[in-house]
């Protein structure tokens, strides 16, 4: 490893630009394989539309299961991106610069993936636009009292704003890439960068709007996952109807999102040889967030259970008893292990510095957070008010395929991004060069 303890602006550019070289065959095999999985998922969806939702494992009373779990999971994944890019930007956090682009990209694609699931789960997807207000001869508009309409507004706003935010940040970087490229690439990059040239007027408006977008994205991100949680909290189903859902879901979202950033970042750093730009210091900071949010999430589990016990509501009591010890009980305990126990290892600095271990932990957290949503959504539905109508969902091939395809779709988009657009923000790294140098010095000192 070529230890450059003190990279300069050009070195940063050089290292990042290296990732934009035309990828090799391994990359295309990877992307091609992902694409095939996406095509398979699309076929499954087409079959589901043609034949009806009966091809899924959905049943009375599990009207929602894997699809909505995937939706909440992906929306949650998205949140850490906005946290890192917008909230930490507002806090002027020093370590965000190296990872924020990756996190933000993840946000954009995760929302894109999440946004598919409300459509996939619809019985009559061809009428999805009835969820949105538009003038029509029927005089009919959506019911703005319905949490699903809030969802439609929140998620589409979130998708728009996070993509705009991602795009804004990209402009100066793509301009850099343009200036390093020739031919058609140069033309395309120039179009993407809108002809950006970094004059003082451009920078002035850029800085102004970037700050304001960060300011807008911060309440937005909190509102979006709150709205998503209200899909459940607004229902009176035991296990759903709870006032703590909004903060609990937001914390869980950041928890799973940061874990997903780690999942993506650790191999990517290696594959794209970005070790000098994304240092263990950055990763350590991410791991701390994972740990912190894990504690919040664990606390939420305790509070949720405590409130149930304290209220002595007979319906809630049964639902929670079933959640722990019912047919889905094993999923709950796997979730507790993944979300509450395993992340405790992050208290150890050595674990936080051990990238392999960290990566494995992040996978566990991802699994755990998927299960958390599943346990809440399907588990609560399964143990509803009518004991005669209880029922337990089991996945069908369609649902497994579409879930797998959603991961493939996300990874495919993400992989394409990494090799055609700068996955690390050169501009911001340059801006925070001081801190990067400090981190590198610290690392080489530790290594020594």
């Amino acid at each position, binding site marked *: 490893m070529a230890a450059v303890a003190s990279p300069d602006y050009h070195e940063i550019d050089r290292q990042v630009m290296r990732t934009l070289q035309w990828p090799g065959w391994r990359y295309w095999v990877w992307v091609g394989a992902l694409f095939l999985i996406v095509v398979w998922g699309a076929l499954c969806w087409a079959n589901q539309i043609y034949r009806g939702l009966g091809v899924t494992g959905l049943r009375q009373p599990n009207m929602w299961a894997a699809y909505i779990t995937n939706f909440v999971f992906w929306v949650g994944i998205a949140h850490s991106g906005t946290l890192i890019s917008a909230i930490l930007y507002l806090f002027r956090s020093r370590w965000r610069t190296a990872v924020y682009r990756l996190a933000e990209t993840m946000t954009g694609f995760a929302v894109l993936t999440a946004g598919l699931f409300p459509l996939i789960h619809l019985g009559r997807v061809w009428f999805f636009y009835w969820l949105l207000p538009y003038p*029509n*001869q*029927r*005089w*009919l508009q959506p019911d703005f009292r319905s949490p699903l309409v809030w969802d439609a507004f929140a998620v589409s706003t979130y998708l728009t704003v996070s993509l705009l935010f991602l795009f804004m940040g990209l402009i100066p970087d793509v301009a850099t890439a343009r200036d390093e490229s020739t031919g058609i690439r140069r033309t395309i990059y120039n179009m993407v960068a809108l002809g950006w040239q970094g004059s003082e007027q451009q920078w002035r408006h850029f800085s102004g709007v970037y700050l304001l977008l960060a300011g807008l994205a911060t309440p937005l991100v909190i509102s979006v996952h709150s709205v998503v949680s209200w899909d459940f909290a607004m229902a009176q189903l035991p296990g759903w109807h709870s006032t703590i859902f909004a903060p609990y879901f937001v914390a869980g979202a950041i928890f799973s999102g940061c874990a997903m950033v780690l999942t993506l970042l650790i191999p990517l750093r290696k594959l794209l040889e970005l070790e000098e730009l994304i240092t263990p210091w950055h990763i350590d900071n991410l791991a701390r967030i994972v740990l912190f949010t894990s504690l919040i999430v664990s606390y939420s589990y305790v509070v949720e259970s405590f409130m149930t016990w304290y209220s002595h509501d007979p319906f809630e009591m049964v639902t929670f008893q079933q959640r722990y010890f019912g047919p889905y009980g094993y999923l709950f305990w796997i979730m507790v292990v993944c979300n509450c126990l395993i992340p405790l290892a992050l208290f150890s600095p050595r674990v936080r510095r051990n990238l392999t271990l960290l990566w494995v932990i992040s996978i566990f957290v991802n699994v755990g957070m998927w299960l958390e949503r599943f346990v809440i959504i399907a588990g609560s539905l399964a143990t509803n008010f009518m004991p005669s109508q209880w029922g337990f969902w089991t996945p069908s091939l369609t649902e497994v395929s579409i879930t797998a395809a959603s991961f493939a779709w996300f990874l495919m988009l993400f992989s394409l991004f990494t090799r055609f657009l700068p996955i690390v923000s050169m501009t911001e790294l340059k801006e925070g060069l001081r801190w990067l140098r400090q981190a590198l010095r610290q690392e080489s000192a530790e290594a020594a």
Partner: protein
Amino acid sequence: MKYGAVAVAVLILIGGVTTALLSQRPWLPRSDVVQPVPFSHRIHAGINRIPCQYCHEYARRSENSGVPPIQRCVGCHSSMAEQVALQAVRKPWIDRRQAAFEIRWNRVYTLPDFVRFYHSPHIKAGLACQRCHGPVETMDRVTPVFEINMGFCLNCHTQRHVSIECSTCHY
């Protein structure tokens, strides 16, 4: 720029096809309907002033207005052997085997399966047939005048303070 032109052309094409398909909305009254018998409402209802319900006799009693039975035609056209145009009516009258010479009128007005429409209360309310069907008495070939969609129904129901509950029409 060449690519741009192609892209614009493709977009226009897609847009055009979509519009064309949507404009075919099969659930709407059709204006291109040609009937097997050259029956003229203008002559019957207009010139001869035959009341609508003389032929569409079920309108005041049923959800359907009904198409007149052949007996009703024959009632007036007692000697029709010489008229070429009336052969289609005469044949089923003479040969009453089912389906032998049945007249297959083409529907002009159709409603989707999920819309329930009763003619009877509308007649009871004193609405003229023309309110929805247009001045049929001036038409040789019936073509729809109004696009009978939900907004059309709602307009009239609201003006007349009739229920616009969903269950009035959909169940």
